[in-house]
Structures are given as C-alpha cells and as structure tokens.
C-alpha cells in the first residue's frame, strides 16, 4: 500500500479540495468582518476583543486548510510580535493624554474631514486596535503552535 502521508516540504493541512479552495476566501472575508466588528465597537456590540477573536479564527482556518507555514508567510510578522505591538499601542494610547494635561487614558477625540467625510478618531479607538492586535496575535500564536504539533 502506498504511503499517503505528506512528505517533508509538501503542503500540509486538511486534504480536501473544497476546503482548500474556499479557505483563503473565507479567511479574507472573516478578516474584513473582524475589522468591521472592531470599528463599530465603540457605540454598538463589537470591539477589539471580539474582532481579534474573529481574526484569529480566520487565521486558524487558513492554517487548518493550507498549513501553518502558509499562515506565517501571509502574516509577514511573527504573531507574538503582533500581540506585542498591540500592547505597546494600547499603552501609548493611554500616554497620549499626558500632552492634554488630563489623567492617564482619558479619551481624546479628533474629527478630521477625510475625502469630505467626518471621521471620528479617538484614543479609545487606538486602544481598541491595540486590544485587537493583542488578541489576534496571542490567539494565533496558540492556534499555530497547536496546529504545528501534528506536522512535526
């Protein structure tokens, strides 16, 4: 009987054609949706934490379908470095209030007009993006480590 296990260097992941073909689209869609959930989070259900979870599950799906190395290539940065960047961003969002003579983490708002649309930018948004990155990075690190174990 022929050995059907993938050889070293070969594509790794769940070996079904439909899943493998659909996974990148699904991942792209979920990433987009995670950003949408993140941005609507200030006044409505959503936010950085849940957006990050959606993004992490998108990457986990890609990992299951196309293998961990494909995810790592697609991410460009090490997931734990993404989490660290989020932590730094959240801390800096709090520190911005130092320049406005208000206590740590006090919300600061700016409403610039970009392409004729008023865009509400704020330090809570920056903090939330930091949370998003921390959750995405940390959960992806865990998920990739668990998926990788089967390959080794």
């Amino acid at each position, binding site marked *: 009987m022929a050995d059907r296990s993938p050889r070293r260097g070969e594509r790794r992941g769940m070996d079904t054609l439909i899943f493998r073909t659909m996974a990148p689209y699904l991942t792209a869609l979920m990433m987009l949706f995670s950003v949408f959930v993140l941005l609507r989070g200030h006044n409505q259900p959503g936010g950085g934490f849940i957006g990050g979870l959606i993004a992490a599950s998108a990457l986990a799906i890609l990992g299951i379908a196309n293998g961990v190395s494909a995810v790592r290539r697609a991410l460009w940065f090490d997931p734990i*470095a993404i989490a*660290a960047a989020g*932590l*730094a961003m959240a801390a800096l969002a709090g*520190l911005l209030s130092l320049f406005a003579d*208000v*206590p*740590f983490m006090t919300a600061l708002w700016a409403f610039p007009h970009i392409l004729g649309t008023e865009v509400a930018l704020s330090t809570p948004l920056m903090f939330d993006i930091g949370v998003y990155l921390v959750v995405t990075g940390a959960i992806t690190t865990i998920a990739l480590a668990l998926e990788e174990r089967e390959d080794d």
Partner: protein
Amino acid sequence: MAASGIPLEALQTSFALAPVPAVHWLVIAPPVWCMLVGAILIMARKRMGLQSWLAIPALGLLALMDAGLLVAVIREGPITMVMGRWLPPFGIAFTVDLTGALFNLAAGVAALGGGVAALGDIDRTRRAYGFFPFLFLMVGGVSGAFLTGDLFNLYVWFEVLLISSFGLIVLGSEREQLDGATKYAILNLIGTTLFLIAVGILYAMFGTLNMADIAAKAPTLAPSAPMMTLGLVFVAAFSMKAAAFPVNFWLPASYHTPRIVVAGLFAGLLTKVGVYALIRVMVMMFPEEGNAYSMLIGAVAIATMLTGALGALAQADIRRMLGYMVISGIGIMLTGVSLGAQTAISGVIFYGLHSMIVMLALYLAAGVAGRMGGSFSLHDLAGLYAKSPLLSAMTLCLFLSVSGLPPFSGFWPKAMLVKAAFDFGAWWQGTALLVSGLLTTIAAARAFALGWWRMPATGAVDPMRMQASEWVPLLALTLVSLAIGLYPEPLLALTLSAANGVLDPSAYLHSVFPAGVPTP
C-alpha cells in the same frame, strides 16, 4: 441631563478637574513603562544583542521613577490618579501612599539587581525564549499591585505577575522545572481564584471596588453584612500567595528549580505582594475584622516562622534552605500584621523592604557559590572561602542580615517587632520571634561553616574570580543592607509614618475623595 438623575453639579465637577501636575504621572509610570518596554522587547526578541542593552537602562530608569514617586509621596502625601477621569468610586484609581511607594521602590531596586545578574546567569537560549520580556511584565505586575487603589485592579495585577512568573519558572523546560512549575502554578491559581471569589462577595456587599470607598463604608456596613466570612476568605487567599504555614508547600517545592536569578526575584518580590495585600485589606480596609482574626493570624505566623526556620535547618541544598528562610520571614511579617500596632506594622513594612533586597542577594550569592563549587548541596560544597574571600565576606554579611543580627538591615525590623510584641503583652509571639531568629542563625551558620569555611577533602583550592555580572549586583545589594543597618533613622521614620497612614487612612481617603466620601 435631568432624566438621567445625575445632578448637574456632579457632572460639572467631573468635567472641570484641575490639570494633572506632571509629577502625578509617576503614579502610573512604573507599570506602564514596564508594559511598554516588555512589548518592545517581545517585538525585538530575535535581536539578542539588543535585549540586554534595552533592558538594563530601562530597569535603571524604572528604579529612578520609583524613587521619584517616593519623593513625591513624601512631599505631598498620598497621590491619586483616576484612569480616564472617571471619578472614583466608578473609575479605576491608582492611589499611592507611603507604604505602596516604599514597597514599589524596593521592588524596582531588586528588579535592577536581578536584571544585571541575569546578564551572566541567563544563557542565550533562555533569553531567546523571552527572559527579559517576562521580567518586565512581572515587575510591571508587582508595581501595579503596589500602586493601585482598586481591589479588582489589584486582582488583575496579581494575575499579570503570576502569568509572567509562570513563563519565568519554566524557562529552559527541564524536567525538574516542569515539576516545580506545576505545583507552583496550580496552588497559586487556587489562591488567586479565592481572591477573585472574595472580591466578588465584596462587590455584592459594598457595590464598590475602590479601596478608599470600601474603607470608608466598612464600619457602617459591618452590623448587617457577613464581614467576618469575607475577611477570612481574604486572609486565606493572601496567606496562600504569601506562603503562610498550612498553604506554603508550593514554595519549597518550586523555588529551587528555575535559574537562580529567577528564584531570587520570586523570593524577593512575589511573597511580599501577598503580605502587602494583607496589610492593605485586613489592616487598612477592614481593621475590625483584622483585629478579630489577630489570634488566628498570630498562630499561623508562629507556625510559619518556626516551620520555616526548622525547614531551613534540615535542608542540604542551599537553594531549598533559602526557600525556607523566605517562609520564615513571611511568618515574622505576619506576626506584625497580627499585632496591628503602629510599631508592629512599621516593623512589617521595614522587614518587607529588607527581605526584598536581602533574599534576592542571598539567592545571587548561592548562585555564585553553586557555580564555583559545582554543586548546591552542602555535602559537596566546600572551600568557598579559599576560592573567593570577597564572595564569602558578602555572604556572611547577608547571612547575618537574614538572621536579624546587627549591624545589618534585618536587625531593626526584628527589634521593632519583638518590642511591639512584648509591649502588647504577647510574650508568646515575642518569644517565637526570638526563637526563630536563633534557629535561622544556626541554619545560616551551618551553611556557612560547611560550604564556605570547611576545606575540601582534597586539600588545595585554586582561587576563582567572580564575573562582573555576579559581584556588581551582589555588592550593591549587600551595601544597601549594610547602609540601612548602620543608618536606619530615615527609613524608620518613613516606615513609622507609612504605618500611620495605613492605620489611619484619612489622608488616603482625602486623596481619592477631595470633597469627602460620597454617601450612598
């Protein structure tokens, strides 16, 4: 506005706050700085050369910030900063009084010492697995715990320091380490879960988590609420964290397994957080309940002290012996908590500061001894005096200090506690303090006689040199201990007024609620 039921004046006060003086930022600076540097170090974790160049100056700056904060608190009294300008009791407040600032400074100094020692002790692999990021996150958790004025926030900082300490304790993933880490992790998680349960009960009773608010409301709620139960859950949770007698077996089972710097930092920093939380909750917030449990805490303290000292006497591994000495020190501090008078609390704070510095230094000395002697066992260690007289001199100083003998820093807090015990009429506690001091002296002398003085059976010994990363932090910490021992006056005055601030928290309350505590 009227529909929401909030009076307009209240809204106006919350919007018309005076600008925050720059010096008040020192309240929040240490934990934020640690988180920020920790994050940068994680991002740069492939750049091995950069790690130590970033970490050591950052730790130095942290110690400077901590010192600046202490100076600011001495000048102004307790300082409060409320996150996001949500006025207390709703916003999370960071409130620093003298007790918190003193502990925080000692933690910063210990972290700097440990960081410098880590340059030699932590090898490339362990650095690649993130020693410095974990160190920063843990120190951030410790200083956050010392500085926060919100009980749930205190729990969060407990978790931060605990999770980072899990990372530090398994660095290297040796078999023995995983065994120690499992015991450490499970028992500490049970402790923090108990703490969380207590916080939940407290929130149900008080409807607030702000420490100043709780302290102000406790007397009015006491007749109608199960305060004694609540107090007992807190005592149990913090005793577990502090490694008090019946729930301390995780400490000797785990502290000898990680690298020596990690063990030293744990011994110096982590158990003290438990003692600090016990002071904050049972002495400042619930003094009535703390008094009611003073016999219980006193009995636990004696058991902790004596089992610690006897355990130290029975060990052959110097690292395990030091672990038991940490426990004995916790018993000494708990004695002061149970006595509750001003001199006693002041002695506890003083002892905590001394213990942070001296326990770290002792672990570092043990690490050097282990490297020079090739073993941590007193059966094999010999002739260290001939190998390095400098190491021996510093170790002797530290052993005398931990035993509570003059002229080192351990003497004064112990003298204060013994005096407080006899003044209070608690002769049994005073006697126990003296007996445990004697036992610790014997244990330390035994270790010194066997490991340092005894000549090895083979006879000749070649002198060995200490590396700079070994002698610099060791000498600095020993000198700190000696300096405190020789000139204790300023620190005595500070700890006395710190104890005053805990026993009579009116200045603390005023700092959080300048317009008076709101009545429900």
